[in-house]
């Protein structure tokens, strides 16, 4: 049984300009100890998808119109608020993109971490303090006793993201959802944080759902990749098969359009591959494949009927008429 099984998830946002279909029929599953990367450009629905797992999207205007999210045999979408809160932060945790704004500026680091222990493990103040200092050590924050009393603004971006990881991993969750955890950080700090996240999740047997726009990070950390475009999954597969043999024209374009280190020294300067056009607006109603208007291989059928997911081999699937 997979740890997490998302079936046919659809999320809409009802705005004044009409319904934005942010996520349209997304299905995937994640095994124990697996690391899956979800990649895609801004507005592709990757963030909304993972936030829906813990129902952290604002409702209204958001609305999960369809689907089922099974976690450990329970449908998260059918749980009452109290049960759901019991899962948030203890079985499933989240880390966000902006370490500068994801911690409350008026409470100490210690206060914000120990809250998790108090809520989920019913610890009293002293025990929660001890556990907090322990987890601060685990995320390699120097002099944790002193940091316990400090406020977020006294810490650097990298340190704050370590605090976020401490909060997320405090209860040794089964699943960690990391939404662009290193995008706002400097390069050398990004390497530190990724390393720490992988090391601790390995130690705690935690699976990771990693959302990023950086294909390099996915290639280096995940075992499986989900590529999203305009609210839909267009290709999934193991990291090696996706990066070596991408099928979907969008995935191919995405990989080719990225400048790669070493290429210029080796082969000289060539213009980067371009995907023409822009991402479609999500309140449009496109009947066929949403990528067709930008696709250089689009056929008549692409503009009429949406392609179905097709398995190329056991762990590689693609939604494209070229392979149907």
């Amino acid at each position, binding site marked *: 049984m997979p740890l997490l099984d998302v079936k046919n998830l659809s999320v809409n946002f009802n705005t004044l300009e009409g319904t934005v279909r942010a996520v349209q029929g997304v299905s995937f599953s994640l095994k124990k100890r697996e690391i899956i990367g979800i990649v895609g450009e801004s507005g592709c629905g990757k963030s909304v998808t993972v936030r829906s797992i813990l129902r952290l999207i604002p409702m209204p205007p958001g609305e999960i119109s369809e689907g089922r999210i099974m976690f450990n045999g329970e449908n998260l979408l059918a749980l009452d608020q109290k049960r759901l809160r019991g899962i948030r*932060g203890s079985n499933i945790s989240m880390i966000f993109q*902006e370490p500068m704004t994801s911690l409350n500026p008026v409470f100490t680091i210690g206060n914000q971490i120990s809250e998790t222990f108090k*809520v989920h493990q019913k610890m009293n103040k002293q025990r929660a303090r001890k556990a907090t200092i322990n987890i601060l050590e685990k995320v390699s924050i120097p002099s944790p006793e002193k940091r316990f009393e400090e406020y977020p603004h006294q810490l650097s971006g990298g340190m704050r993201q370590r605090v976020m990881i401490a909060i997320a991993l405090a209860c040794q969750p089964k699943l960690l959802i990391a939404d662009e955890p290193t995008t706002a950080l400097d390069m050398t700090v990004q390497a530190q944080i990724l390393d720490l996240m992988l090391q601790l999740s390995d130690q705690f047997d935690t699976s990771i759902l990693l959302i990023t726009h950086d294909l390099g990070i996915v290639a280096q950390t995940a075992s499986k990749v989900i590529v999203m475009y305009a609210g839909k999954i267009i290709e999934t597969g193991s990291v090696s098969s996706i990066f070596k043999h991408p099928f979907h024209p969008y995935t191919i374009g995405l990989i080719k359009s990225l400048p790669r280190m070493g290429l210029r020294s080796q082969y000289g300067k060539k213009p980067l591959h371009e995907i023409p056009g822009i991402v479609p607006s999500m309140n449009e109603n496109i009947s066929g494949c949403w990528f067709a208007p930008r696709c250089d291989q689009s056929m008549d059928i692409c503009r009429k009927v949406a392609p179905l997911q097709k398995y190329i081999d056991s762990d590689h699937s693609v939604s494209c008429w070229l392979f149907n």
Partner: protein
Amino acid sequence: MYTFIVRRLLLAVFVLFCLSIIVFFAVHMIPGDMVQVMLGPAATKEAIAALRKSFGLNQPLYVQYFLWILNLLQGNLGESLRMGAPVLDAIISRFPVTLELILLAMGLALLIAFPIGIICAVKHNSWFDHLLRPVSVIGLSVPDFWWAVILIIVISTYFPQFYIVEYMGFFDNFAVNLKAILPAAIALGITMSAVIIRFVRSSLIEVLQTDYITTARAKGLSETVTIGKHALRNTSTDVLTIIGLQMGALISGAVLVEVVFGLPGVGRLALDAVRQRDYPMVQGTVLFMASFFIFINLLVDILYGILDPRIRIS
């Protein structure tokens, strides 16, 4: 934090100095001569000149100002020309009434505004929120003295047992005191609460959209803790600043409401003094109330610094 407070204090002293100049010269620009008023139309020129001299009114304005300031620094606001008693004593004896009125009004306003503001923010765009918006506009646009008049009519017609004629001190007779002050405080508080509701609502809506609220929810905290602890702590620092600024409106509102309800506060003292051209009293009351306003805002600034660690520890 220490330098923060010192800097605020120095600023307050400077503002007070500027204020004293404005108050002094503004008072002396009130048309009409006090001595003329006191002695009546039949007074001889010589009598007027003599009285002016005895009050020191014959000296140039800047000399008068200088003397006034010199006395002020010694805690002497001069003597009332009408009552013959020291201005400061008169103010001190009247101030508890105004203070009680203002504090009660502010307390009432907060008591009304916070729950309503929170509900509006949490359920924003709900029917309750939509209903409250025009209601708060009405609250904002109707002046407090109008509420005062309405309240007097309502109380005297329907609840005559609550209608009192004679004001009594807080420590003399608490029940009568409250009966006298409460309607006035309600009249003042209604307008104030409308302002604060809007502020609590917009501030909380903004805070609820921040990342740290999502973090709090993702931690598994209940909505009560998320809003009650994480959101409200940030909103209350915002609201604190508006309380300081609204103190001005409250003080000026108190003047009118005191008159309408016949409360013997500083506001009425000031108004009577203006009517009688009692310069020292006008200067004294205006300066006192302005200092009170500055003091409250200084307090707010310091409190803000204490509540917001980004200012406290920089």
